[in-house]
């Protein structure tokens, strides 16, 4: 109960909860439509989804200011690449919220002559740019950690060396189901390098849950603007599933603040 009280006191947490419910409705609507459910139930789910969407737009009024303040703070980061990625991501987010606020005004009736489709496309474009920059930041952090890990581990040799013993029987013969780097020299140096890099990537991701969660969240979120902008159409079911999963991951970072990637 204390966690709930703490969570619901934060505006962002409420938005995440409503986002989870909204994408759950999207996924449910798709599932019901596929399953041949009645029109009334589908209409209810669609109405709820629309209401949650408009409610979230209302809740997001003023978020542009928040994003601009975050951009101002990010300008002082010491690392050049992080500074660029995070600042520009926040600026894009501020533009996304500004377009979102205009859409709210249009849907409420304050701006009846607004071209909703045009502004919706605009907002998704800014959202896509913000996600691309967030993914760039994640990739940069991963590459730094992989480099650090490979230096600390003494390079690739130790990683491949570590897997050798488990793939050999006591009499020195290769185990039949062994997938080892013993085969790497047979496949070629490129495959060996890829294998080593993959192992390093898995090691880094396992040791850094906040980075892994952020990467996963951004990868899931990117399908939403890609679908809405027509760049990579997946379908409402897939968009709903991605949105729902990324919302749950976002909620996790609020319930367990240590899982949030900083800065």
């Amino acid at each position, binding site marked *: *109960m*204390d966690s*709930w*009280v703490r969570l*619901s*006191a*934060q*505006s*962002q*947490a*409420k938005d995440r*909860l*409503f986002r989870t419910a909204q994408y759950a409705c999207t996924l449910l609507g798709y599932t019901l439509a596929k399953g041949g459910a009645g029109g009334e139930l589908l*209409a*209810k789910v669609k*109405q*709820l989804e629309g*209401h*949650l969407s*408009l*409610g979230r737009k*209302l*809740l997001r009024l*003023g978020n542009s*200011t*928040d994003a601009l*303040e975050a951009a101002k703070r990010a300008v002082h980061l010491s690392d050049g690449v992080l500074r660029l990625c995070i600042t520009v991501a926040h600026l894009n987010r501020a533009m996304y919220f500004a377009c979102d606020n205009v859409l709210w005004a249009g849907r*409420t*009736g*304050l701006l009846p002559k607004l071209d909703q489709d045009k502004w919706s496309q605009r907002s998704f474009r800014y959202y896509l740019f913000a996600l691309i920059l967030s993914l760039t930041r994640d990739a940069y952090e991963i590459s730094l950690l992989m480099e650090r890990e490979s230096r600390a581990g003494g390079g690739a040799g130790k990683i491949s060396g570590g897997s050798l013993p488990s793939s050999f029987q006591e009499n020195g013969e290769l185990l039949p189901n062994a997938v080892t780097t013993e085969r790497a020299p047979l496949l070629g140096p490129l495959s060996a390098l890829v294998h080593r890099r993959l192992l390093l990537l898995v090691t880094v991701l396992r040791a850094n849950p906040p980075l892994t969660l952020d990467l996963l969240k951004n990868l899931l979120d990117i399908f939403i603007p890609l679908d809405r902008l027509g760049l990579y159409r997946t379908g409402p079911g897939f968009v709903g599933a991605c949105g729902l999963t990324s919302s749950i991951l976002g909620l996790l970072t609020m319930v367990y603040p240590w899982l949030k990637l900083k800065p």
Partner: protein
Amino acid sequence: MDSYIKLVNQSQGRDRVFRATQYACALLRHLLRNHAARREVLEKLRRVESNMSSGRKLFRLGNTVSSISAVKQTMHLSDPMLQLCLTSTHLIRALYFVCDNILWAQSVGLLHSINKECWSRAASRCYLISLVLSLARDVYFFAQVTAWAAQMMEHQKKPLQPKSKAGEAACYPLLGSCIPALIYKGLKNNPPLILDALKNICDLFIPLDTLGIYETSPGMVGLCGLLSSFIGILTLLKPNLKLTP
């Protein structure tokens, strides 16, 4: 800017800002009601007000749990009168949120067969009772503060008493004219109490009008709602102005 960010990051802060906007729209609609040329503006104000109201109902989902959690805390207060007032207030507020959530479900289309008018009146009744209990707590605090002020004044007059009986007799006529001074002295150092009482009095007009107990006008309701929302925002921006517990 930092204060604004801190305010809107709190769920309650955003709700107060939206509430202020909702009642500002209600007040403006009342003021412009006779301007035929402003029909379009009136319609826009009505839509914004309606959107804010339904949005706030959405944000209040789950507030029942927060109220019940607050009950668990107030049950451990040492002062029995405060314990009674605050615990009852939070319980009634939890009931209000339940009614409010049902009304939200009806507005969204999840529940069709409920009597909206009946649940709306139930919500207004719960809101009224919670405000009356909050005012009872303010009156209790006010009585304590006035008693304290009276004690302070008695301490200041004490040196006169051993010297002359005339001084003692002179105290009693003074007490009659001391009461406004007592009230003033008591309240002067308690801005949180004044603000809380003012907020509750302003809020009281809303359910009184809705339930038809004391009908005013949409303009008066708008003005009272706007004032109480401003006071609520002030107590969030400056936590030392919030009456505790």
